[in-house]
Structure formats: C-alpha cells, structure tokens
C-alpha cells in the first residue's frame, strides 16, 4: 500500500512546553487512521503541525512523497491536504454556500457548481439551508458544513479533529456514518477523537497518544480488544 502521509520524529513546543515528543506515524492510501487519547495528549497539535499552522523543530512531514514541513499552510491545502479543525471553525457570518465556496478556494472556478451539488447530495440538510447564515445552524449541521467545506477542495487526505465533540449521541452516529461512507468512497482519512469506541469502530489502524507520545498502535480491532485501551478509554 502506498503511503500518503508520513510523519517522522516531530517535536512541537508551545513556548517552553514540549507538547509533541518525537512522534512518528503514517497513513496509507484509502485508509482510515485514528489518533485517540485523552484531552491534552497532543492530538490536535499534531494535526495543526501537519497543516502547517504550527511547526516542528525536528524531523519531517511527507505528503505524497513531498516534504511539507516548511510549506506555508495555504500551499499545503493546494496539495490536497484538508483539515476540519476542532470546534468546526466555520465562518459564522457567511452563508452556508459561501462557506462551501471558501472550501473550494484552491479549486478552478469551473468545477465549483458540480462540487456543490456533490456535497449537497452527501449532506441534504445543507442544501435546504444553503442561503442561511452559518451561525444560525445547529451544532450537528455546523459539523456537516465543516466537513462539506473540507470536501470541496477534493482532498487526497482529509483530517478530522474531534468531529463528535459537543454533539448529541444520535448526531455522533450520523457523523460516523458519514465517515464510513467517505471511507467506502475511497477517501483517505486521519481522524482525531476522544470518543475512542466510535473512532476504533471505523478505523483500519489506530495510534494511542499520551502526553505527547504514541504509546500503542495497531489495527482498529486489535486496539479495541486491548486491555490497556479498554481500561483507559473504553470504560473498563
């Protein structure tokens, strides 16, 4: 299998705080890989470093065989790496459709209408609300908008940061159903989650992060069955 993302020995600091302590992992083409771990383990920091919003002091990040550790964020998106950030971060004062258009910022203008239709097919709720101001959407709808917005850029790799955060259980189910569907359609996904059970249920492979380090890795099923993971993250 072809490696699409390869993170090799990155160290990230917030001032004096050593947030990521030399982690390495990879994502293969077509896989769903999840990073699970408690709050503060460094999962979001890892995604922000891959997206270029933060920088590693060491090592390298390769995307599709190219070193992107020093590439500016906006160029990384152009290369096909999209992120749905933690807390969704949609543009609250812009309409649903404008948010989606911003997702397509790196795309040539001609294909945007087709892409809009494709996203509306995936998320019919967004179509109903396309003219509405995004700030008026419910939490679940905002998450769908954030995912739809990222899909507008035709990502080769989609990174999702805590998509289930703050959502009611039924909406969490819906979001993970969408992740399964995207996986089936061939989208490569790197998923960061605190909801370990849900994350492991969709993941081909998983890494467990604790205080800035990767402490365990394996297939989704292996980790779901591991005593250590059960005890720490799955409630016994």
């Amino acid at each position, binding site marked *: 299998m072809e490696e699409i993302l390869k993170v090799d020995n990155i160290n990230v600091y917030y001032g004096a705080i050593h947030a990521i302590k030399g982690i390495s992992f990879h994502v293969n083409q077509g896989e769903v890989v999840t990073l699970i771990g408690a709050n503060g383990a460094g999962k979001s920091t890892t995604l922000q470093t891959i997206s270029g919003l933060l920088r590693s002091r060491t090592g390298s990040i390769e995307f599709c065989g190219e070193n992107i550790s020093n590439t500016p964020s906006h160029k990384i998106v152009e290369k096909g790496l999209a*992120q749905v950030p933690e807390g969704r971060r949609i543009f609250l004062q812009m309409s649903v459709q404008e948010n989606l258009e911003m997702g397509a910022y790196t795309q040539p203008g001609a294909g945007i209408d087709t892409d809009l239709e494709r996203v509306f097919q995936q998320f019919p709720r967004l179509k109903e609300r396309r003219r509405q101001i995004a700030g008026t959407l419910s939490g679940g709808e905002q998450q769908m908008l954030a995912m739809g917005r990222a899909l507008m850029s035709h990502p080769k790799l989609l990174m999702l940061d805590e998509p289930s955060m703050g959502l009611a259980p039924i909406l969490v189910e819906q979001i993970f159903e969408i992740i399964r569907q995207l996986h089936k359609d061939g989208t490569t996904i790197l998923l960061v989650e605190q909801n370990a059970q849900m994350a492991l249920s969709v993941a081909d492979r998983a890494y467990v992060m604790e205080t800035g380090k990767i402490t365990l890795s394996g297939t989704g099923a292996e980790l779901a069955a591991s005593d250590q993971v059960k005890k720490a993250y799955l409630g016994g």
Partner: protein
Amino acid sequence: MEFLSYLISGISLGSVYAIIALGYTMVYGIAKMLNFAHGDVIMVGGYISLLSMTSLGLPWWLAVILAMVVCTVLGVVIEGLAYKPLRAAPSLAVLITAIGVSYFLQNAALLLWGASPKAYTPIIAGSVKLFEGQLSISYVSMLTVFMCIVIMIALTLFTGKTRMGKAMRACSEDKSAAQLMGINVNRTISMTFAIGSALAAIAGVLLCSSYTSLMPTTGSMPGIKAFTAAVFGGIGSIPGALLGGVLLGIIESLAKAYISTQLANSIVFAVLIITLLVRPAGLLGKYVPEKV
C-alpha cells in the same frame, strides 16, 4: 434655505469622512489593527495629485489616478515593512507602530514639500445655483457624494460577490480557518491595505478640493474624525462606515452653523461617546457573543 445649504455641505463633508472611514474599517476588519497612518496617506494623495497637476501639468483625472497608484504602493509598503513583522505581536505594539508611521509620513512631507500651506485648485470648479441663487451647491460637493456612493456600491459588490472579497470576509472572521481553506492571509491583508490606500487617495483629492489648501498635517484631523465615524457606525462594517461618516459630517456642519464653530469638534466627539455608551458596538456594529 440656509438649513438646506448647511445640510448639503454636511453630507458632502460626511461623504469624505465615509470614504476615509471605509479604509479604517476594512483594515480593522481584516488585520484587526487601527492604522493611524491612514489619515497621512490622504495627505500624500493630496500632494501627489497637486504636484502632478501643477509641476507635471497633467489633467486632473490622470493626477487622481497617479495619486491612487502612489498611495496604493505606499499602503502596501507600509504594511509590509512596519506591520507585517508584528503579526504575532501584542496589539499595543502595532498601534504604537502605526502612530510612528503617521509621524514619519508627516515629517517626510514636511521635508519634501515644506510646512507652509499650498493652495489647491479644486479638480472641478463652479457650482449649481438653485432657488434664484439662494442655494448654491458646488460641483465638488456633488462629485464627493457621487464618488462616495459609487465606492460603497463597488465595495459591497466586491466583498459580497468576488472570490477575493469573500476571502477577505473569511480572513476577518477567522484567520487560521481561512488558511485551512488555502487562502493566503498575508496577501489578503496586503490587498486590503491596497484598497484602503487607493480610497485614501480619492479622499485626499476630494478633501483638498473642498478646503483648497494642503499642508503636511492636513490628513490628521479628518483621519481621526473618520476613525470616529467608523467606530460610530460600527467598526468592521462597510455600511456602518457610510452611515457614521455622513451623520458625523451633518452633525459637524450643523453644530458649526447653529451652535458654535469652536465647539463643533467637541460636539462631534461628545456624540460619539454618547453613542458608544448606549450601543458599544456602534450603530450598525455586530455584537457577536462568544459561542460556547
């Protein structure tokens, strides 16, 4: 009739404030900084247009275009040299830098063009007389109001319909999220300074055409008043800048006519303070509560 004439001159003055306020408000909306050097860019626009008409003998419209080009370049250079290195710095550092740039421009103008006021020939002379000559409206006044309306419409269309304009709105809401969309935030900020400075050049020409004199400090007071207008209307809001500018112009003109010329400025700023006490976000400003 007298009232009408003061009202019209207020609207015209207010239109200049509005054009300047648009520059303040756009830069604030996107870069989240108060560019106190904005007023001095107006003054530079005034000098460039004056010198191109007098020394180079260019026609007025070419002089205006040249002033716009010079101010645009100046705005982008100021942003790149003085503000961009401070992107991660505390906002107080940026504010102090902006005040520094303002003094730099005033003193550079003092060196280059001297301290004495220069006479500025209005780009369009003459006026329309109405009601058997009782009411006279200068062409410059009419042009000012007209330009203000055209600029408003153009900016509204630009930010609402174009890809670059929407990217600006995205940056003004959330810079990291905008970066994750592939938007080049630095280029967007430069673009905002370019537009704001081009507008400052137009404002400079219109301002000097109605006051017919120009010196290195010409831009300061209108700059501060336009900033007031932007805050009054709701900083960050384009229609707010228009409303704030025009209202401020009318208040100033009527206060000068009916209350006291000396007190006019105090009245203008008192209105600002009262408005902000009642509506802290300004007339059209959006108070966006933090969503938890």
